[in-house]
């Protein structure tokens, strides 16, 4: 019971007591949102640039969507790049070949991710633990090979280029996201906020509580008559949907669909973001994504062998920092 209480607490963002006084959960939320809303104005001072901030927000959305499954349902997926990349290619192909409209492109990208996730989900929903992880890894690679091989449509190894994001046409007004990085940041942040809001609401609902129960003790949940497989399938679908949304945004950010978006290395990056920030905290993956992306940006501008450093970083996080940033803070303050 007490364990469940604690995790229920973390689902709401938790109250983090810092330096003697208890930082209210709402205050913490407000600080996070304030920082995100003002990011384009201060990121330049600390040596960043607007596009870097946009990348953090988009990849954080992917990592938080993954964490819906990983941290809150307790199911280990290592193949989320597939749905991220499907969003990316869905949008890119639509804008390049069908209609040059951002919203239609996003809808098609997300739909592609949902359809693929629904079908693959049906095949894997009965598997658990490392078996689940293995199969998600392997299935994640199908779409990579399709993108890689279907040269004349997807551009193969070079990726899908020759298109760019279009202004968002809302009927009454247009948002020019193409030439205005600021505007694109806020569009991305809007999508981020809506998705995160939906996921937070879901986690607070009876459905979300059931997911936590499954994570804590699947057998007991089953004895209580909860249709566990169906819950995991729905959770998987939700997670993949928002990952697909993040993929469409990422393609727009780069004006390019990269086959690397579909590759298993990208899946691993999402997982490390979630772990680095703290899997059991709602905001954890955001912090993890920020640290990871800034670090990657910095290292890859200094050395060609940045992959080794990223690999070393993985190892160090796993061996010395397995609870992640927020997990550590929580643990310290609880003692």
């Amino acid at each position: 019971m007490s364990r469940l209480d604690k995790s229920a607490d973390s689902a709401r963002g938790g109250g983090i007591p810092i330096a003697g006084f208890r930082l209210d959960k709402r205050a913490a939320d407000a600080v996070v949102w304030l920082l995100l809303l003002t990011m384009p104005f201060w990121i330049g001072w600390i040596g960043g640039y607007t596009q870097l901030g946009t990348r953090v927000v988009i990849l954080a959305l992917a990592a938080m969507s993954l964490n819906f499954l990983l941290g809150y349902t307790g199911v280990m997926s290592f193949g989320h790049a597939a749905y991220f990349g499907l969003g990316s290619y869905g949008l890119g192909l639509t804008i390049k070949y069908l209609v040059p409209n951002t919203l239609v492109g996003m809808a098609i990208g997300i739909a592609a991710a949902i359809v693929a996730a629904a079908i693959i989900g049906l095949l894997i929903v009965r598997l658990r633990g490392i078996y689940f992880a293995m199969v998600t890894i392997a299935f994640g690679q199908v779409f990579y090979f399709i993108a890689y091989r279907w040269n004349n449509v997807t551009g193969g190894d070079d990726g899908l280029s020759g298109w760019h994001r279009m202004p968002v046409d809302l009927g009454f007004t247009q948002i020019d996201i193409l030439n205005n990085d600021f505007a694109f940041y806020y569009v991305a942040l809007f999508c981020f906020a809506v998705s995160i809001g939906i996921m937070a609401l879901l986690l607070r609902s009876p459905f979300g509580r059931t997911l936590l129960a499954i994570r804590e003790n699947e057998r007991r949940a089953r004895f209580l008559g909860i249709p566990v497989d169906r819950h995991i399938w729905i959770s998987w679908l939700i997670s993949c949907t928002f990952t697909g949304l993040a993929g469409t945004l990422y393609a727009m950010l780069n004006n390019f669909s990269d086959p690397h978006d579909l590759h298993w290395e990208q899946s691993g990056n999402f997982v490390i973001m979630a772990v680095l920030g703290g899997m059991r905290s709602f905001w954890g993956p955001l912090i993890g994504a920020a640290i990871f992306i800034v670090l990657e940006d910095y290292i890859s501008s200094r050395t060609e062998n940045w992959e080794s450093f990223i690999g070393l970083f993985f190892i160090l996080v796993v061996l010395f920092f397995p609870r992640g940033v927020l997990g550590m803070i929580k643990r310290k303050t609880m003692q």
Partner: protein
Amino acid sequence: MTELILYNVFNGLVIGAFYALMALGLSLILNLSGVINFAHGGFLTLGGYLAFVLVPFVGFWGALLISPFLTAIVGLVIERLMIRPLYGRDPLYSLLLTFGLAYILEDGTRFIWGPQTLPFSVPIWLQSQLSTQFFFLTGYRVFMVGLATVTVIGLFLILSRTRVGMRIRAGTLDLETVSVLGVNTRFLRTVNFGLGIFLAGLAGVLAAGMLGLQPTTGSELIMPSFVAVVIGGLGSLPGTLLGGLLIGVASGVTSVFFPDASEAVIYVMMGLVLLVRPRGLLGEEGRF
């Protein structure tokens, strides 16, 4: 046409033998320790490059013999230092760790030996064609299949006849009981890890002789090996062997009719197997 199909079936068997060697190593480690070794491909590449370094000193045969052992030693050190602390924790962590290792091994080989493909020569008499009619039966390919067969038989003999092999099999079923019976399970896991990496190193030397040396070889071969393990069924080594050969032949035959799908076909097979038989072809029910 028959010849073409025959050629591709044989070629598929050769590739399948690779997948099987690699997947058997993966499976060994997975079954006993519950670690999904993402770095397996990296160890394979390392085995190939170590052989490349050794050839000038000890010749092809010496390298073929020594390189897998050296690779296994590297594997043992890594297991002891990094993976052992993670036993008993969420398998997510060992997965992430080996993921990082895969990055380092690939980038490290690229750093030391360069990104370009290095040639790896095999003895001349192995390069000859054995038959003018069946042009594809080069000596090296037949040799590879032969060596892979001998290795697999050796592995199964070790597992069924030696004390340590029997302990590995027992540990796969119930490690706790094996530990209670007085077996040093930490040591057992280390030996088992080394055995798996040995197989990867051997596959690496063989692959180098056929494909040449490239830092990315390992990451290209790792996914099919995962698929082989899943198709064969987790927990079953004969299943893994069968899975490796099956997907090798399947992608070989597909490359005759629809070359662009030769990679995707193995995932379709995996999907079908999971649909009909979620535990894999030879997997035990209820184990995973």
